[in-house]
């Protein structure tokens, strides 16, 4: 086995050790969510009501995806932060290789809840009585979930990989944003800074655009 693959597998194993509880819990949750969503929609009269009931779970998928990405990224770095990165920096590989391997290990771990969601969505799609005019989108839902988790993971991973000075810069930028918003409000300006920022982030092809759209297993 190549040397790099061996190293990467070792890091993957440590990250699995740190996150397996969370990943397994999330896997159970996202497996159940599609099944519960169609169960709550069973027995409704109209297609509109059916979609509405299923879509109520939509926000849940987005929240779980974001939370999963966040926690897997934090877990990837928390041990190193606690030990002031001494162990990682004393390993015989370049820093960027180490970071890359950690990043890929965390990204791979996200495949587990994704697979659980796909399984749950496929089972729900086959077992539920979906109105004839509606369709199930198990793969679309699953891939949106995966990409959303991946984006959240990458953002938090990048922030966590930085030094304390980087974290201070980021916090300063966020603080500046809030100060700017307050200043605009106090001078009576109608310029909606937060609205514009949200538009940039959530509209395609913004950073968080994968989170917008309809998170629905069943739709037209």
């Amino acid at each position: 086995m190549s040397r790099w693959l061996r190293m990467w597998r070792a890091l993957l194993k440590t990250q699995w050790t740190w996150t397996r509880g969370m990943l397994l819990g999330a896997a159970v949750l996202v497996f159940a969510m599609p099944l519960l969503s169609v169960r709550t929609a069973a027995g409704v009269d109209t297609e509109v009501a059916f979609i509405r009931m299923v879509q109520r779970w939509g926000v849940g998928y987005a929240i779980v995806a974001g939370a999963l990405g966040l926690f897997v990224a934090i877990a990837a770095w928390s041990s190193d932060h606690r030990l002031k990165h001494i162990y990682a920096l004393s390993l015989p590989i370049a820093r960027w290789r180490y970071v890359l391997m950690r990043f890929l290990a965390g990204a791979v771990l996200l495949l587990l809840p994704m697979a659980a969601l796909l399984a749950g969505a496929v089972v729900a799609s086959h077992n539920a009585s979906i109105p004839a005019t509606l369709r199930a989108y198990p793969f679309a839902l699953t891939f949106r979930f995966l990409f959303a988790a991946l984006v959240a993971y990458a953002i938090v991973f990048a922030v966590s990989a930085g030094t304390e000075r980087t974290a201070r810069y980021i916090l300063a930028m966020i603080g500046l944003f809030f100060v700017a918003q307050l200043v605009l409000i106090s001078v009576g300006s109608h310029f909606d800074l937060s609205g514009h920022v949200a538009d940039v982030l959530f509209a395609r092809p913004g950073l968080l655009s994968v989170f917008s759209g309809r998170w629905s297993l069943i739709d037209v």
Partner: protein
Amino acid sequence: MSEIRDSMKCVLIVIPMLIVGGEAVRAQTVAEYSRRVDSLGRVWQIEQRAEHARDTVRVRVLPSDTIRIDQLVVLADSAHVQLARAIAERLAPLVRQRFGSFADRLSRTPIVLRTQLIQPGDNDMVESGVVNSRGVLQALTLEPANSKQLVRSWQYKIASVLSADLPPEIRGWLGSGLAPTAPDRRTWHQGRVGLALSGTLASRECAAGAVARCVQALGLTPVPNPAFALFDATGRQKMVADERRALRDEDSTTFDRCVRANQYAACDSIARSMPPELVPMALPGSARSTVLEYALVKGGSGAFDRMIATPGGIRDRLEAASGESADSLVRQWRAAVMDAPENAASLDGETAISSLLWAALCGGLALRSSRWR
């Protein structure tokens, strides 16, 4: 816009007058009643003359420069002549292609583009409207002064003007007006949404593949007892609830049993006595509009003209426009909307790729993680 104002003024002036007048009527002699009606009429005439004077003033503010591009006539003030010409040159061929010779009537209803009067000094906004056949400026809107916005706005105005002139068979069947632009992927998706969510018995069977039911649901063929042929019990209940005001003669107890107590037998009894004109079509206007668009696409050049020129009902007109029988047209339409790929629940390629790129970018930034801590 001024028509709405007119209507509001009617309501605000006439209703209080009627209330006051109504109170007095009960204790009046006929002569006294005549005198009061005459008085009301005089007040109304005075108000109408004042309103006309105000409109006349506004018509006088119409721009003086006239641009004629094919069927489009645009009145623009000197500051916006170039913009108006550019938009007209862009729109005229599209309108001609879409509406054929039917669009010639647009030369009688010029489009207006002028400096806006509402917020003086704001040069980024303009007013845009249409002069109707009575010379009154209507559909007046405040727009950003850029061609992209104005093209879209004028397309809506043109569609609105032409929709008002459609033959009643088409206008009544469409429900809503003509779509302002040629169909695209979203149009067929809209058709599918209409088909999927209408919730009627006929629409479900149509979606499942029964083309004959599609034809019935679209109202292209008469159906005996439509309330029962096209709707299930739930659909009839909704129909009864929606038509409450029209069902004046119905026993309110039966109505309550139907709508509040969910007794479908009560709904059925009301539905049986419902006038046929109150029974809605089983597919909504949004779906019907896509059938018309599909017929125009199938028919190609001259389809719209053929649709207008053909006498008869909507079925004959659609067949003339598309060059296909109604059954064949509806079969193809159904296949097109059921296969419409775009859906907000699905993950489009652009979002997927952009997500991966963002993740890669963040990962790349992480690689710059410093050794020095």
